[in-house]
């Protein structure tokens, strides 16, 4: 009894130490002293929960029974860690980027946040882990019984030890596993405690190994000789099991909920993984180094029929090494406790997140709830889940009553959780993997595992009828649980591993190929498969600070630095924080979202803030809303673009008009000075000659006549000028009366040509006409029309600068309109002058200024009155004017 009391005291003291370590670590974390808590060595040691009591006790038992096969349990995980660059690096980054909280969460997130998948993986994990927890309780109970009076193993299940251990662990896990509700689900206290436990169990096993090798066997060489001389002396191993169990343990290392918890969820930075990549294989090597020596020595020294699972304890006890035995007990105890604690945390997170909370939220649907409300519910559901998981483990233990060897249960559990492997690997490496495929694969793998391994493990006749094992269900031999489709490996485990993983993978791949992924699934798939470290730097220990910083960075990008800083400062003051970033409270997030919505739209702002705070994930609806907003913005900007195009067109027109006006104004100014000059010149002569006539005595008659006719001519010139101006003014004001008569175009042109060339003596312009086209009768004001023609012909005569000036008059009849073209062979009108020649006072060149520049303006007015139009034809060689006349002159003057 005293030994048992001592054991109890040691156990309690040990648990108290763990409490202390965990408490100290949590305190350190809260005060921000995080460097050593995040040290890679702590992470590496925390991975040691892979080595459970099963490893601690069961490996020796396995070695004693099956030889070297136990090594594969360690070799598989070693290979996974050595290949960290392949899988773990990616897995860990996805875990950090997506804030994954458990393996069920990872699978669910990857396949479009499917809660069904989350529930499936959770159930698989619970079923796979419960026996494992039972195993730990059993090992503690067995180890305690070793120290008391020998008790038959069959009665072990009656012990209360297991219950108290389970209860104590539940308390510890509730206290340190649900202390805070962190978005990252990191538990620094627990991880630290586990790291300490890792050291304890390694120390215990190594100490025992050293005692066995150097104390009992007499050195390394002697130990090796002893091994060769024992039952395990020759290398004998089942090839299939060596390969299969190595694969299985590698798969389980990735998929076990507790391993995922420490590997991915508790991971903080890549440096941790880089150290674990080489240090954890070393740890595993050290853990397994002395297993065979202990087994061989135990087989040698202990009486026939001793339970090899307990050699670790019975060997030192039989040699009188009570202290060493106690250390070994502590090692086994710590192996069991660390596994149970982490498994309970991992399972409770999954159960609470994927089963309890969805149910609770559905029940509460419609009723308003405060955020603090939900928080408490989550914590409560976590705590209850922890208690529930441990209770399940205890019940399993109590009901099964410690019936099988430890290793068997462990491998059955491994096979169960390994069913997640195809879906997990497909999820992070294959973008085409879909939810339907994942469901199909998991269902296939899980049901085959249950049928071929889990249920048969209870023994024929317990759950499945014994006849099924012999003849198959309903006599269908192809469906015998341990020889499915007639395939038997002579090994139940290999058979189950083969069929479950094969059909699982086939169903997964097939289901994925023949199903379509939802948009959210495709999005998540792309994010998972192409996960990069960008933006996923080591998250700060203090989650809220990191979030605020991220929010700040994002806000600066959108609002600009000054405004963002002002906003954050204002909010920090409102929260009573001076000179710090505001805490990301719901109120602050709401304000921020509203501010951002002003710049990027409400849905986008919501999605962005949600993405950073991690609380709300982006849903497809959010994305649709973002797309809507974007479409609206694009439409708006397209409209703006059209308007601005129209504006620029109008502006160009205005600019042209303005240019024209400016030129006209310049011409007008020029003409005003010109006309003053024109008026002054005759006036001066008139004045001068009239003064001569008045003042000079004795002028001859001839002189008097000459001077008088000069005065007369000049007066006539003035009159003509004024007549022109008057004429134009009358035409412009529409006060002219048209005298419509019928006439032939040929006659009008004849008259015009002879009038225009009348005062030209000989050296005139040659006029080329085609009289055939001129045989057109017109009803028009013949006088006015010939005035226009005269003006055009005399212009040609005046301005044509060719060596041998020619003027072509071409008449064409074009669909009810008569086109009369006057084309000369000169250099034409300069392009910049073309659009002003019809304006009043416009003159092509100053030096040849014969008239006042009113001719074309008058002509245009006349032609317009006659219902036609006159225009200048560019690029016709010389100057070319076109007069368009209606054939039937019906339009009368107003």
């Amino acid at each position, binding site marked *: 009894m005293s030994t048992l009391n001592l054991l109890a005291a040691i156990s309690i003291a040990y648990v108290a130490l763990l409490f202390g370590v965990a408490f100290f670590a949590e305190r350190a974390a809260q005060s921000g002293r995080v460097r050593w808590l995040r040290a890679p060595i702590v992470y590496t040691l925390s991975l040691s929960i892979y080595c459970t009591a099963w490893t601690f006790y069961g490996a020796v038992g396995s070695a004693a029974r099956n030889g070297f096969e136990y*090594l594969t349990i360690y070799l598989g995980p070693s*290979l996974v860690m050595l290949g960290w660059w392949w899988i773990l690096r990616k897995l860990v980054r996805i875990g950090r980027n997506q804030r994954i909280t458990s393996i069920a969460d990872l699978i669910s997130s990857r396949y479009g946040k499917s809660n069904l998948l989350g529930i499936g993986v959770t159930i698989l994990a619970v079923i796979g882990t419960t026996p494992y927890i039972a195993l730990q309780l059993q090992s503690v109970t067995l180890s305690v019984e070793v120290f008391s009076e020998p008790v038959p193993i069959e009665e072990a299940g009656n012990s209360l030890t297991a219950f108290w251990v389970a209860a104590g662990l539940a308390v510890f896990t509730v206290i340190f596993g649900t202390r805070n509700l962190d978005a990252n689900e990191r538990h620094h206290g627990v991880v630290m405690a586990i790291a300490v436990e890792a050291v304890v169990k390694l120390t215990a096993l190594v100490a025992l190994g050293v005692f066995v090798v150097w104390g009992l066997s007499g050195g390394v060489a002697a130990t090796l000789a002893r091994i060769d001389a024992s039952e395990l002396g*020759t290398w004998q191993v089942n090839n299939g099991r060596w390969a299969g169990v*190595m694969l299985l343990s590698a798969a389980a290392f990735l998929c076990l909920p507790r391993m995922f918890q420490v590997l991915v969820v508790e991971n903080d930075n890549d440096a941790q993984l880089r150290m674990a990549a*080489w240090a954890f294989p070393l740890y595993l090597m050290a853990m397994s180094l002395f297993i*065979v020596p202990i087994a061989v020595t135990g087989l040698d020294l202990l009486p026939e029929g001793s339970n090899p699972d307990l050699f670790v304890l019975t060997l030192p006890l039989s040699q009188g090494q009570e202290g060493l035995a106690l250390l070994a007990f502590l090692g086994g105890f710590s192996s069991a406790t660390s596994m149970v604690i982490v498994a309970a945390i991992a399972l409770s997170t999954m159960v609470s997140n994927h089963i309890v909370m969805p149910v609770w939220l559905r029940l509460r649907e419609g009723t308003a709830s405060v955020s603090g409300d939900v928080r408490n519910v989550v914590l409560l559901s976590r705590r209850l889940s922890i208690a529930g998981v441990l209770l399940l483990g205890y019940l399993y233990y109590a009901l099964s009553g410690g019936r099988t060897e430890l290793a068997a249960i462990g491998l059955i559990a491994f096979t169960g959780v390994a069913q997640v492997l195809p879906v997990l690997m497909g999820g992070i490496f294959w973008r085409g993997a879909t939810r339907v495929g994942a469901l199909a694969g998991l269902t296939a793998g899980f049901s085959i595992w249950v049928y071929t391994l889990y249920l048969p493990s209870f023994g024929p006749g317990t759950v499945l009828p014994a006849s099924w094992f012999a003849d198959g269900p309903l006599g269908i031999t192809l469906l015998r649980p341990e020889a499915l489709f007639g395939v038997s490996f002579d090994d139940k485990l290999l058979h189950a591993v083969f069929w479950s993983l094969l059909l699982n993978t086939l169903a997964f791949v097939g289901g994925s190929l023949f199903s379509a992924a939802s948009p959210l699934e495709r999005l998540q798939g792309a994010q998972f498969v192409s996960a990069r*470290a*960008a933006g996923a730097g080591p998250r700060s220990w203090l989650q809220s600070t990191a979030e605020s910083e991220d929010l700040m960075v994002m806000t600066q990008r959108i609002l600009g630095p000054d405004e963002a800083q002002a906003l954050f400062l204002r909010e920090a003051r409102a929260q009573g924080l001076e000179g710090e970033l505001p805490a990301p409270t719901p109120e602050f997030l709401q304000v921020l979202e509203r501010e951002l919505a002003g710049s990027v739209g409400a849905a986008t702002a919501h999605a962005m803030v949600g993405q950073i705070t991690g609380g709300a994930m982006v849903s497809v609806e959010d994305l649709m809303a973002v797309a809507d907003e974007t479409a609206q913005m694009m439409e708006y900007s397209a409209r703006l673009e059209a308007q601005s195009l129209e504006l620029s067109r109008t502006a160009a027109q205005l600019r042209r008009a303005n240019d024209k006006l400016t030129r006209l104004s310049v011409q007008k100014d020029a003409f005003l000075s010109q006309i003053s000059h024109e008026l002054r010149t005759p006036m001066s002569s008139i004045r001068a000659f009239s003064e001569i006539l008045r003042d000079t005595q004795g002028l001859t008659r001839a002189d008097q006549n000459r001077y008088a006719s000069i005065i007369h001519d000049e007066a006539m010139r003035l009159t003509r000028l004024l007549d022109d101006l008057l004429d134009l003014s009358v035409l412009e004001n529409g006060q002219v009366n048209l005298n419509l008569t019928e006439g032939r175009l040929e006659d009008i042109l004849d008259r015009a040509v002879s009038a225009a060339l009348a005062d030209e003596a000989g050296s005139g312009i040659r006029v080329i006409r085609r009289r055939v086209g001129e045989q057109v009768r017109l009803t028009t004001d013949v006088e006015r029309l010939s005035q226009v023609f005269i003006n055009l012909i005399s212009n040609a005569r005046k301005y044509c600068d060719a060596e041998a000036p020619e003027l072509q008059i071409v008449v064409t009849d074009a669909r009810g309109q008569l086109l009369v073209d006057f084309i000369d062979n000169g250099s034409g009108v300069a392009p910049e002058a073309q659009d002003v020649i019809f304006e009043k006072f416009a003159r092509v060149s100053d030096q040849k200024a014969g008239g006042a520049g009113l001719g074309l303006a008058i002509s245009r007015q006349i032609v317009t009155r006659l219902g036609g139009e006159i225009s200048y034809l560019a690029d016709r060689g010389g100057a070319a004017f076109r007069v368009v006349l209606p054939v039937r002159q019906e339009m009368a003057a107003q």
Partner: protein
Amino acid sequence: MTRPPGGVPPRPPGKPPARHAPFQIERQSFRRRRLIDAACALPLLGWVLWWLPLLWRGADAPMPASLVLVYIFGIWLGLALAAARLVRLLGGARNTSPLPEGDDP
């Protein structure tokens, strides 16, 4: 991305390196990629070596267990040390390499 050093034309003898820095950069990234390849090959090597004992049972005399134990644990130690070395070299290469390959922000 970048050419391996083999793609760099040989420097004429006696002439100082005109573009020293790019050559260094290329060699760094080349070295780093070789290290990553090695890191990826390591588990495959371990896998093959640890499956090798499965072929030993055909020998005339049964293999003594001690020898196999020494073999397996020797490989274990060797692989762990090789991984440690690779991690160290990769860390060093990352610190100096201008092309972090999206490794760390």
